């Protein structure tokens, strides 16, 4: 039995935990405002909000793609569809969309409205750029977005002044959300559906689901009649903490939570910008670190990011706990150094010193919400321009997320200058084995990785290296 609140209605359902919320709200609940358009979290037409109690009277709301959201994870939550924010009259957000002509065929529109509503509910302050980021998971084929930008600007302007302090009440008074939202915390408490248990041993007959954002893309109709075990809400997996040497990120932590974590930001000040390049806001709100690592995509942004931070991965089963370097987790294509009964518990990052420099690069057809052609990360500790320690990773160039060990070896002890950078590019080129596919040809991926390695050094050592100095060495190498 799954128990939650859908808009203002309590729901108890025997529907399959492995079915997705989109199908429940459209078919079982008969709410047709949430649209299905891609069923892979890449268009945002099915965006809804999910609210979760963080204490007795506060709910945190996030936008999520309901097409990839397992119903079994909704226990004790507040699920909000477009119908759940409608008033008798249009609210100011809806009115702005109408006035600016920001909706044409209308199929994508409820998704945009829900992403923005979640943004207004979840953000500490309101500004135009963040509001645009909030719709990074919403695709519109009709408008060309200019009118949507105008509508967003208008509503941000309206809310900007007023949304402080008691935000929920302020949003209610602006009619962005209906008044019933005030009663939801008490109702969720009554549901008492949170039956948290400690991490249970893995039963290998079960389908293990973390965020599910890739599993439900790959096997959409497959999990409905399966016995599904959800990891992401298990306590012990969802924290970020640190001691004097390491920072730990639980495997169940959501990607967006990492992006917003003060602990992680202290290590990687630009994490906010880097993680904005990963998937979209609603996907980051649902996808977990552990899911991303175990998925073992050769192009996984999170994996490539952490590989260059020299992290260790902690995995466990009923009988033993193991911890080893993340780079040793990947054996061959989608094959892991992990038994079926193991689950990933955490990643452990060595704290970075002030001498450490870190950079992440990603190039895809589209900057946001796209899978990289090639991505790469590097962390370097240099002393007087002599490289002391370096970790370099690259995605999209090998069957596994690649830790470029030989390239790192080559760099240690060398001075940062154009010659060194060119040299490491040659080593890296010999270390990779990209294939031609929908994300690019082999020759492109080779060239692109070279350029991204250039970019690492140009970004981190602008006084030593620039494109002109590198280009002088490399012209005529490619034809």
């Amino acid at each position, binding site marked *: 039995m799954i128990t939650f609140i859908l808009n203002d209605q309590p729901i108890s359902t025997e529907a399959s935990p492995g079915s997705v919320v989109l199908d429940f709200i459209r078919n079982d609940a008969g709410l047709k405002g949430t649209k299905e358009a891609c069923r892979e979290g890449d268009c945002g037409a099915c965006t809804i909000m999910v609210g979760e109690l963080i204490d007795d009277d506060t709910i945190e709301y996030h936008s999520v793609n309901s097409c990839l959201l397992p119903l079994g994870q909704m226990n004790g939550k507040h699920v909000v569809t477009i119908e759940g924010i409608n008033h008798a009259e249009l609210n100011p957000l809806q009115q702005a969309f109408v006035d600016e*002509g920001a909706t044409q065929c209308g199929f994508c529109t409820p998704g945009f409205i829900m992403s923005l509503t979640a943004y207004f509910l979840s953000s500490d302050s309101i500004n135009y750029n963040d509001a645009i980021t909030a719709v990074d998971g*919403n695709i519109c084929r009709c*408008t060309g977005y200019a*009118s949507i930008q105008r509508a967003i600007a208008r509503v941000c302007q309206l809310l900007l002044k007023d949304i402080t302090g008691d935000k929920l009440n302020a949003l209610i008074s602006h009619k962005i959300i209906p008044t019933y939202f005030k009663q939801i915390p008490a109702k969720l408490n009554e549901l008492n559906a949170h039956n948290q248990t400690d991490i249970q041993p893995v039963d290998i007959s079960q389908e293990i689901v973390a965020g599910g954002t890739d599993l439900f893309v790959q096997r959409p109709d497959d999990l409905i009649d399966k016995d599904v075990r959800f990891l992401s809400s298990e306590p012990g997996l969802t924290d970020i903490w640190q001691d004097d040497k390491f920072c730990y990120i639980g495997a169940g932590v959501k990607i967006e939570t990492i992006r917003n974590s003060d602990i992680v930001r202290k290590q990687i000040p630009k994490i906010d910008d880097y993680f904005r390049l990963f998937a979209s806001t609603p996907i980051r709100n649902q996808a977990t670190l552990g899911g991303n690592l175990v998925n073992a995509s050769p192009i996984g942004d999170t994996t490539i990011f952490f590989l260059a931070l020299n992290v260790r991965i902690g995995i466990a089963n009923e009988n033993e706990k193991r911890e080893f370097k993340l780079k040793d987790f990947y054996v061959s294509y989608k094959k892991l150094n992990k038994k079926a009964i193991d689950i990933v518990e955490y990643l452990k990052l060595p704290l970075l010193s002030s001498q450490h420099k870190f950079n992440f690069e990603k*190039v895809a057809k589209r900057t946001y919400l796209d899978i990289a052609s090639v991505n790469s990360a590097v962390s370097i500790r240099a002393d007087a321009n002599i490289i002391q320690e370096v970790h370099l990773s690259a995605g999209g160039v090998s069957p596994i997320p690649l830790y470029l060990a030989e390239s790192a070896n080559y760099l240690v002890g060398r001075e940062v200058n154009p010659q060194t950078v060119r040299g490491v590019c040659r080593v890296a080129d010999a270390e990779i084995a990209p294939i031609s596919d929908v994300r690019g040809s082999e020759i492109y991926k080779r060239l692109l990785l070279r350029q991204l390695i250039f970019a690492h050094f140009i970004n981190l050592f602008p006084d030593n290296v620039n494109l002109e100095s590198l280009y002088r060495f490399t012209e005529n190498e490619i034809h």
Partner: protein
Amino acid sequence: MSIKNKDTILHVQGKSQFIDDQIVPEGTLYAAVVSSSIAHGKILKIDDEEARKINGIVCILTASDVPGQNQIGNIIKDETLLAENDVHYIGQPIAVILATDAFTARKAAKKINIRYEAFPAVFDPREAYKNGSLIAPERTFSCGNIDDAWRKCDVIVEGRVESGGQEHLYLETQGAFAIPMEHGKLKVFSSTQSPTIVQKTIAGILNILMHKIEVDVLRLGGGFGGKEDQATAWACMAALGVWKTGKPVKLVLRRHDDLRMTGKRHPYSSDFKIGLTNDYKIVAYEAMFYQNAGAAADLSTAILERTLFHTTNSYFIPNVKATAASCKTNLPPNTAFRGFGSPQAMFVIESAIHKAAEKMGVDSSIIQHINLLNEGDEFPFGMTYKSKTAHECWDNAQELYHVNEIINEIKVFNEQNSAVKKGMALMPICFGISFTTTFLNQASALVHVYSDGSVGISTAAVEMGQGVNTKIRQTAARVFSIDIERVFIETTNTTRIANTSPTAASSAADLNGNATRIACEQILCRLRTFALEQLKQPDASKIDFRDETIFYNNQPTALTWEILIGQAYINRQNLSAHAHYATPAIFFDRATEKGNAFAYHVCGTAISKVTLDCLRGTYTIDAVKIVHDGGTSINELIDRGQIEGALVQGIGWLTMEEVLYDEAGILLSNTFSAYKIPDIQFTPTDISIHFLESDETNLGVFNSKAIGEPPFMYAIGTYFALINAIKAFNPNVHIKYDAPMTPEKALLSLYSA
């Protein structure tokens, strides 16, 4: 302030209904489609034994279940609904599964095993051409004397141009819902731009008369041409399912199937030869277009024809020879997509100009400007250009957007930056309005004035977000001079409006708006006579309808719209009208390839500005600034939305949208995640639109102009702006005119020798 599209109020609340949102009757069956997994071959055996064992399967339909003609070809009868013996592309429908729920239908579809004998497949249009595999005989438009003309040229440049396909990616996938009615009738709800084509094709499939089929269209979640001809098959399958089972049948494609099974914008491979004199006048232009039609005709021949009509874009060229061949390949039949073959043609002439400019050491804009159409110039197909707006838009853009300053800024920026370069380009457009198939240029409207003064209108136009219904509402409200809230536009329904032309060719507002205008005028004419009687006044010319009040001799009378209509009804006046409109004075003779094919032309000029990251090969579109001749716009909010939307769709076609097949003909860009279209962060930072002020008259409603397609072609400028930025970094680059300019091609060009 512009009148709002009434539907938008529903959209923002999630209340607007699409096919998949309709509440279905109990007992409705759900369909899933089984399609070919090979590009060319013969079906040896369809093994459905496993599938039939699944609980909930009702029936499995194949070609042998079709009672009438197994044929969905529109222009040419060359396409089966369900494959008979041979298959010609991956995704070609072979069987339809009907089950009690959609999940079961999909599950069963996976269990159908089909054995094939594979034949060689062709995917390249030039190879198909060489093999003589054409959809129809090739066609040539020409004027002047091309052979003599080359001798008069000082500079001659030749080249090859490629342009890629484009997936429509309407957010609402293809779908239909059919229900059985009395007397063997069927009612079909279809997400189609062409209700009558759906009706007629089902009639053929089921071997029944057209009056037995009622097609109803409420709205489309995007069409863009993708539902002009290719919505038909799914409606036919649903109808066939109803015919077989007597139960309602719903068929809505999942995205993956939609992408795999439906055709896209035609890829073209083309050769050009252009000759100029030293004063930059284009003297001669020759082009050969190889259109990749896919495995069946669909609308390819009509699209090919429009390619020929727009061979010279906005330019006057005295000697032209353009030949086009629709080449048959083993891809899904490619189909209509905003621009309908004209973007491909314009991209070739712009490439030719760019290459000529490079050879002559000037900017393309010099050649573009000198050769722009003047009033009285003749197109290669014999029609005279009767407007001044091509030059007016260009000149306005130069002034309004300070083009010389932009050029200077970019020059300075590029001198100061080595790793980032900027580029710009101008793009004039000229697009002919009318279906080039003359008979389609007709529409009708049915207008009812109800006894309470409210108005209900049916037309052939299909609303798909482009705002056509709003323009029709405005037209009626304007003719009657009543509050627009009195006017409601009904669904598009073949029992109310027969013989509908597709909502396509940017012409729906013109055709259906004019039909509505005429119908309203007919009613108004009767009301004038009636009002004159009521007012006991003698002079009909002194009656005036203004803001819901009837005026006589410029004085308001006691008669309001509501009172007048109430009395008219009591006095047995006819308050309904059906009117037909056919665009006057257009004709085209395919024997001579000459004629007045278009009602009028739409012109404009765009300036595109881009920034290229020369380290990573990525780019941003900084600005597109447009001066557009939209006539006297009925609704600037809608027209602005159409320009912005078309532009960004065009930018997608030329930049990141890449339709990719592998060597076996399997679609690689087969998901939303593998086929990228512009998002809110990629859209140009600045889209400026200025509507040209012009007092020219035309055949649009109240002198407005068609808006849907023309602005798509402004995007071609962004391609050349990117090329110019690449050249700023790598002057030695050998430019391949090969769209889209993906970040991959950009990076490889930046570092090519």
